[in-house]
């Protein structure tokens, strides 16, 4: 989560679910929390029952809206316009938390003269390179700083825009000498200070603009803005809750950044009942970025070396180390990781085996891989617990890609669509794929459930929770731990005799984990112990402060250091909540350092006193000369509030006693992001990649930096403003199912609760298109067409954009070809245009058509889709096309 990482320092939720009950206002946006995180939602209900306002801003009226004290319907893809309006409201009405903003954020910092805003360049920030279609971010820096990455620039092509941004975790550099930005204006009046830039940037986001751009009323917008403002300040706090309704946009990262700006202006970060709660959809999705199964980072958000980086470990460390804050110790984190992986073979002399690490390109992310597959460049693919055939955007492209592989390993509980693509898929039905012509060798490996293995999940609030094996897996079912362990063991055996240097990383790899039982299951405890790390005596480390860059410590993931402190599995702690405070510090273990509410130094004023009794959380105990409170202080326990670092201070020592954001080089919350984000230092409203509307602000229609695949035949786009695809489409989940359905569509008790794919439309749209409740409709985009049963409901609200009422179409995305309940896969309709920072697909706002009737069958389906597409492109804006004529009652004529 680079947006949170860049703004505050860490790529994780700033708070924990239980703390939502302390909020005076909970704003849920980009999330349908009641439906998708029902048990976590109990804390929102607790807040509501205590009198808090609960506002839900969402294109649909959902079960969350039903519980909210206010629902505001906006069009999908207009969130930055809405939130930008809130920023403007705060600034226009002097509602910011003045002392917090001045002391804890970078609002007073003066920005380089080279910077110019989207308002000055019709939708582009300074530094735009139309050739490369990317920004030179050096123009966005603070005034008076040397660009930190200048060191890196000695190396060819090593531009800051390349190295930052990817899953950024903390503002690494900023070119600060010792943590303090060089030029500031504490009166916030300097025309180039962040505060004034912000003010100018959002000046046009008036309530009337918001209403026109988002399709709500001025009154609705004002009610939301006023609630946010009045529930902030020393006595009150408000929290934001979001999920993939924000991330899955071509502006996803910027969208979250807008909320970060609001929360910093209102002084809601680091305080009880405040914060930004990121809700993740999978049991360990936070864990899978902390210990990443992501191409661009190593455990603990350390960057993967790039092919254009060939300077060795020192250059790497120089590039990743920040002058101030905890990223100042990046060398210790990296060396300890290399020691964990290559053990005794990793020595200071050989750069601790740094050269063993493979190098990445700019983008080797999932959707890039899919394209490589389509080109036949990927031979082998291992899929463990995911279902890209229906779970990834543009399902058809994904399935066609699978058919180009030489071999495919699918590990799951049931035969999901990804395993079955070669005999049971829409392409087999249409004849586009024929089993006897597909060369892919497929291994289906039955997986063990969480009840059949030990291990830890990291939940949405960064909390590691251990689950114990309850029963043995049956027959061939095995854990991933077993699979990868034995895979590694066998690969090591294969190359045991090898002299080839390329095999050294395998030969030297530490791979000794005790196993037990007949099936030789490796010990998950021992893996967690390695992740936690040891000192040179083999003693488990108590925390990342102890990590050294000299090779005397080993640690598999520095932010998890402490999870196995005292040689005990801290994640397995299960002290009941009734035996401890509500922060529950003895239940599981949270990174970092078992802190539950991050940046909690900010819950006290610059002098270390609580802002108010009501919002007391962590404070400076002058008698004991240390920080204390209800949580582990997220600050050096003994650093005084008035500490000022000496000029030569580095790393954590360079952080002032009144700068709460200890991961940031300057210790400040970043309203303005001079680096770390590739598509702008401030969020700006851009239209989604596919939108029926023109950008009301700029000629620059969509995010200029978004990733798209104009040359990829398998990923065609609806032309902007096309009458063939006139409706806004948004996809989502239902309580009763889980993501692409692999764990729910195959489960009787869940399948029966939502047993069929349906599409939600407003009665006006039903009238417009002749759709009837309960009957079939066909929804189509340039990618494909699917059918669904029609749910005509007022919950799917139309929006009035710039005076015209426009309709939105809602599709749950749980279905596919297989399971107890089957149906059209919504992801067959979606495209692979991505957010440039994190390569996440935009499936929350695109365009589509909808007609009554079932979809064409067999080979007529691709024909129908192609015809529509051609009409859209040939005659953009002209009369809509006639659908394919078919014998049965497929798509009917309009």
């Amino acid at each position, binding site marked *: 989560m680079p947006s949170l990482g860049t703004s505050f320092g860490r790529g994780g939720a700033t708070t924990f679910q239980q703390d939502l009950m302390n909020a005076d206002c909970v704003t849920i946006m980009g999330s349908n929390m009641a439906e998708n995180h*029902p048990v976590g939602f109990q804390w929102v209900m607790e807040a509501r029952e205590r009198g808090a306002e609960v506002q839900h801003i969402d294109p649909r009226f959902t079960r969350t809206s039903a519980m909210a004290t206010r629902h505001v319907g906006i069009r999908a893809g207009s969130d930055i316009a809405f939130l930008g309006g809130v920023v403007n409201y705060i600034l226009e009405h002097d509602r910011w938390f003045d002392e917090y903003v001045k002391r804890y954020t970078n609002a007073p910092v003066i920005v380089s003269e080279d910077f110019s805003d989207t308002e000055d360049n019709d939708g582009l920030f300074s530094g735009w390179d139309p050739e490369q279609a990317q920004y030179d971010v050096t123009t966005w820096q603070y005034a008076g700083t040397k660009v930190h990455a200048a060191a890196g620039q000695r190396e060819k092509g090593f531009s800051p825009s390349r190295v930052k941004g990817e899953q950024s975790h903390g503002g690494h550099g900023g070119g600060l000498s010792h943590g303090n930005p060089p030029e500031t204006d504490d009166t916030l009046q300097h025309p180039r200070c962040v505060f004034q830039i912000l003010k100018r940037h959002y000046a046009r986001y008036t309530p009337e603009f918001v209403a026109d751009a988002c399709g709500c009323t001025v009154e609705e917008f004002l009610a939301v803005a006023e609630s946010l403002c009045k529930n902030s300040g020393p006595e009150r706090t408000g929290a934001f809750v979001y999920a993939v309704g924000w991330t899955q946009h071509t502006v996803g990262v910027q969208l979250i950044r807008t909320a970060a700006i609001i929360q910093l202006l209102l002084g809601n970060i680091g305080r009880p009942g405040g914060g930004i709660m990121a809700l993740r959809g999978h049991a360990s999705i936070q864990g899978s970025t902390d210990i990443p199964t992501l191409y661009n980072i190593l455990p603990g958000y350390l960057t993967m070396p790039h092919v254009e980086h060939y300077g060795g470990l020192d250059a790497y460390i120089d590039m990743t180390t920040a002058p101030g804050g905890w990223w100042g110790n990046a060398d210790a984190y990296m060396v300890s990781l290399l020691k964990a992986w290559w053990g005794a073979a990793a020595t200071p002399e050989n750069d601790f085996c740094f050269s063993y690490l493979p190098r990445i390109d700019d983008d080797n992310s999932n959707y890039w891989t899919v394209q490589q597959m389509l080109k036949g460049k990927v031979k082998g693919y291992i899929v463990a617990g995911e279902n890209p055939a229906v779970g990834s955007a543009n399902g058809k492209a994904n399935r066609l890609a699978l058919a180009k592989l030489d071999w495919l390993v699918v590990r799951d509980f049931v035969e999901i669509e990804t395993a079955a693509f070669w005999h049971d898929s829409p392409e087999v039905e249409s004849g586009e794929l024929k089993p006897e012509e597909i060369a892919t060798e497929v291994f289906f490996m039955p997986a063990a459930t969480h009840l059949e293995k030990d291990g830890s999940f990291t939940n949405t609030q960064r909390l590691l929770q251990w689950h114990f094996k309850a029963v043995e897996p049956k027959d061939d079912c095995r854990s991933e731990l077993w699979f990868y362990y034995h895979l590694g063991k066998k690969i090591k055996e294969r190359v045991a005799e090898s002299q080839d240097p390329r095999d050294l990383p395998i030969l030297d790899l530490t791979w000794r984990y005790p196993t037990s039982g007949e099936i030789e299951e490796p010990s998950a405890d021992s893996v967690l112990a390695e992740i936690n790390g040891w000192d040179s005596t083999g003693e488990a480390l108590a925390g990342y402060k102890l990590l050294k860059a000299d090779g005397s410590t080993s640690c598999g993931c520095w932010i998890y250091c402490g999870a196995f402190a005292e040689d005990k599995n801290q994640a397995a702690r299960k002290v009941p909540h009734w035996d401890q405070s509500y922060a529950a510090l003895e239940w599981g273990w949270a990174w970092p350092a078992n802190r539950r509410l991050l940046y909690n130094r900010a819950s006290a004023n610059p002098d270390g006193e609580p802002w108010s009794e009501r919002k007391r959380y962590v404070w400076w105990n002058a008698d004991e000369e240390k920080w204390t409170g209800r949580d582990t202080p997220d600050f050096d326990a003994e650093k005084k509030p008035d500490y000022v670092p000496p000029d030569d201070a580095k790393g954590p020592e360079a952080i002032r006693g009144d700068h709460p954001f200890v991961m940031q080089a300057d210790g400040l919350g970043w309203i303005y992001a001079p680096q770390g984000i590739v598509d702008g230092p401030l969020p700006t409203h851009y239209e989604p990649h596919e939108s029926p509307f023109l950008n009301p602000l700029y000629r620059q229609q969509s995010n200029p930096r978004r990733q798209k695949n104009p040359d990829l035949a398998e990923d065609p786009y609806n032309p902007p403003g096309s009458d063939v695809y006139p409706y806004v489409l948004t996809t989502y989940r239902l309580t009763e199912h889980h993501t692409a359905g692999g764990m729910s569509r195959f489960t009787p008790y869940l399948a029966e609760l939502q047993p069929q794919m349906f599409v939600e439309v407003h009665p006006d749209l039903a009238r417009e298109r002749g759709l009837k409740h309960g009957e079939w409709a066909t929804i189509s985009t340039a990618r494909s067409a699917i059918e669904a049963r029609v749910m005509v409901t007022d919950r799917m609200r139309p929006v009035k954009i710039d005076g015209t009422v426009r309709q939105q179409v809602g599709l749950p995305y749980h279905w596919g070809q297989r399971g107890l309940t089957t149906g059209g896969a919504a992801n067959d309709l979606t495209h692979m245009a991505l957010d440039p920072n994190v390569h996440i697909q935009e499936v929350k706002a695109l365009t589509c058509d909808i007609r009554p009737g079932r979809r064409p069958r067999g080979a007529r389906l691709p024909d129908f889709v192609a015809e529509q597409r051609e009409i859209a492109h040939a005659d953009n804006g002209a009369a809509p096309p006639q659908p394919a004529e078919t014998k049965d009652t497929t798509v009917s004529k309009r």
Partner: protein
Amino acid sequence: MSALAEPTGAPAAWPNTYGDEAKPRMGFFTDTTVCIGCKACEVACKEWNLIPEDGLEWSGLSYDNTGELSANSWRHVAFVEQAKPLKLDGELATADGGPEPLRWLMESDVCKHCTHAGCLDACPTGSLFRTEFGTVVVQEDICNGCGYCVPACPFGVIDKRDLPRSPDDAPLALPLLGKKEDGRVWKCTLCYDRLKGGHEPACAKACPTDSIQFGELDELRGRAQKRLEKLEAEGWNGPRLYGEDPDDGVGGFGAFFLLLDEPEVYGLPPDPVVPTAQLPRLWRTTALAAAAVTVGIAAAFLGGRE
């Protein structure tokens, strides 16, 4: 019988028949104002009570694909979408110039465990009985599937489970005594077995927002009254308690509700009365009619043999 003629707030066979075994009367208070319609109650109930899947048909009735309480669904969440405000004053009342008001009612329905239960009174085998907790439970080892309890329930709760005969069942070898796969009646037991072990019912335990509250009935009634007062003070649109009144036609429910609209909107009878309330009179009528049959036929003999 006389007690039944005019239902009272106390069940007929509890606590007196249990002596020392008697426990406080346990029940549910289902507060629909905090129900998020997640259906965890339905699933938790099925998991605990090993209830079969109940069909994979999409209904189109908002998000309700369960439809009703039945032998294979002992909890049922009703969904009603309404163009009505959730509150009559305050933020959620119809805003001037704003969009249409909208509310989405969700209610987890369940067996009411009536103080005077039609099913229990009707059961001819004693399979249905009032437990030491004051709840009404079917004993699956006794029920012979006569089905009389089904129409005897004013709420349409209890239901017979008819599973299709499997092909390898003996083809009518003993047509009368041939064992059908199930054929018994089923309904919520308020997790009788869990209660006996000191555990709360599965649905109430799972409920993420505590919409389903389990406890001693007297305490729940007090809690519900307070809740109602709070909601009324906050200006909610149409809050009312349903089934908490010991003077109603079934002597009050063991599992009662806080609703936001008329009961029938949720599929509940507006004024349920236990059929047995009229039984004494019905028995008199029946006896009179029987006597009349005798007298009438005797009269037919007055005309002689031909």
